[in-house]
């Protein structure tokens, strides 16, 4: 077949133009700014080499943000994937109770993170919050979810998971449905019990879904902004700031765009490294059938 070049260009060029101007160039600029002391306003700025990065690795608030971000990532990745697989396996039956549960768990997924964060900040209040009201019925003294930054972060991680679990569950259900039924039946005939079937057949064959979900959940956790911004605003005194929150604050609150670019670049490199490692690990475990 011979194709008219003009047609090919007309079809492919608009996308690549937008992508280059609004993605690749800003990405390059982020790299560039991270080596400058640009403040976001003035025309003059200097190349300062690796100074931003040196300062970054001496900055206590960066280490704290890193810690907060990693805690959120670990908790949410665990909940999304362990509970996600569990719910997918348990709810993958054709009856009304399971259909209802799947729809219910998916509802929070369509809600905006801001809305979810407001609802939960009421629920976890120390005085008059729902959790403490319910605990009070059983005579349990009220819990202060804000007493230490780490408690707050752990609670926020649970809230994020409540918000997003439905998506991960649905992807796991879809992966589960790609497993041929005959395999299960064959294993059952061979005398494998439920636990054996789960670990020997279901889990290995769910690897493609686990690859997608672990990368999605990991990247989601590392760039967390919304829930923390609404619930604590990063406070008290920056103790619950994530890397994204810190970077945005430096860029717009303190007009230190160069420094902020360096912070966000480190985050980006982290995401790339983690995703590459993860994909290579889980891809190796994907089995052919």
């Amino acid at each position, binding site marked *: 077949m011979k*194709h*008219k070049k003009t047609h090919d260009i007309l*079809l*492919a060029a608009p*996308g*690549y133009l*937008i*992508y280059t*101007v*609004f*993605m*690749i160039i*800003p*990405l390059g*600029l*982020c790299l560039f*700014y991270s080596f400058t002391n640009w403040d*976001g306003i003035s025309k003059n700025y200097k190349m300062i080499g690796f100074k931003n990065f040196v300062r970054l690795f001496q900055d206590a608030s960066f280490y704290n943000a890193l810690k907060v971000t990693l805690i959120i990532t670990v908790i949410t990745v665990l909940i999304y994937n362990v509970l996600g697989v569990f719910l997918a396996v348990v*709810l993958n039956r054709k*009856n009304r109770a*399971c259909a209802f549960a799947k*729809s*219910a768990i*998916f*509802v929070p997924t*369509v*809600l*905006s*993170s*801001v*809305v979810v964060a*407001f*609802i*939960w900040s*009421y629920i976890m209040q120390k005085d008059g919050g*729902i959790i403490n*009201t319910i605990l009070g019925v059983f005579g349990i003294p009220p819990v202060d979810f804000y007493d230490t930054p780490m408690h707050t972060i752990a609670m926020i991680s649970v809230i994020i998971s*409540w918000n997003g679990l439905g998506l991960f569950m*649905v*992807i796991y259900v*879809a*992966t589960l449905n*790609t497993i041929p039924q005959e395999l299960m039946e064959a294993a059952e005939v061979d005398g494998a019990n439920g636990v054996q079937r789960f670990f020997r057949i279901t889990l290995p064959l769910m690897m*493609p*879904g686990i690859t997608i979900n672990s990368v999605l959940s990991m990247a989601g956790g*590392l*760039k967390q*902004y*919304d829930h923390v*911004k*609404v619930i604590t605003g990063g406070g008290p005194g920056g103790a619950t700031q994530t890397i*994204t929150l810190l*970077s*945005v604050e430096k860029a*717009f609150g303190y007009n230190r*765009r160069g420094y902020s*670019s360096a912070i966000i670049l480190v*985050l*980006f490199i982290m*995401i790339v490294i983690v995703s590459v490692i993860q994909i290579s690990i889980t891809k190796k475990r994907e089995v052919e059938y």
Partner: protein
Amino acid sequence: MSTLVKKRLTGKKIGRGTRNLLTVLFAVIYLIPLYVAVVNSFKTYWEVIKSPLALPSSPTLENFTEAFHASNILSLYGTSILITFTSVALLVLISSTAAYIIIRRKNRFCKFLYGYALIGIMVPPVVTLVPSIKTLSMLGLMYTPWGLLMFYGGAYFSTTIFLYTGFINSIPVTLDESAYIDGAGTIRIFFRIIFPLLKPCTATAVILMGMWIWNDFLNPMYILGSTAGKTITTGIYNSIGAYTSKWNLVFANVILASVPIVALYLCMQKQFMTGLTAGAVKG
């Protein structure tokens, strides 16, 4: 039937009954936060404080009328619908066409273009936000809906291209060839024959992008600023920030912001669930 078999059968039945009960119970507990938001939006301030878990004793719509006017909900909706709709349409159009060309033309340049398009898949939008403010202002697009539209076009191009290339690969080239013999040009072949076949993939792209863009918070906050209108998320964030402890009003805002999207989900549950995965998981 022997008693042993009978025992096993009834045993299984009871097991199934309790399992279903536990399933429903779990789902109900999962939805308690939404129940809390709904019931308290119909109460007065004092009733929320006194009995936060009870149903409203005399339901009032006052919170809603106040929130409706104070937050200017309709204009927030207008902005959100406009931005989500145009961004998703733009993404579907530019990435399905580009994906088609780079998959069908087997040459080195297209291979390069494929790799180039995937660079962005690991870049979270927040990485490009700060420098985008520079590029957008240079183009005169800062603080306009157009700027946000272009930002999303760049930010999610990689993801949608990734979805489409995988799907187009599974469509036989013979379809293109027969249309070509009938004298159709590439543009016609794509829009008449290929694009309709991409429906499951387009559904995935529309739902995924639609949810991300509709619920986005950080990017519209800085790119639209305070002049170019507010989306539902940024608008609600601002108006709720103004009365942090008047929970009855907070919840009325929360409900007004969420009812349409939840209603859309409940009406199109099947499309949401299957659409999200049809183009993403091989089946």
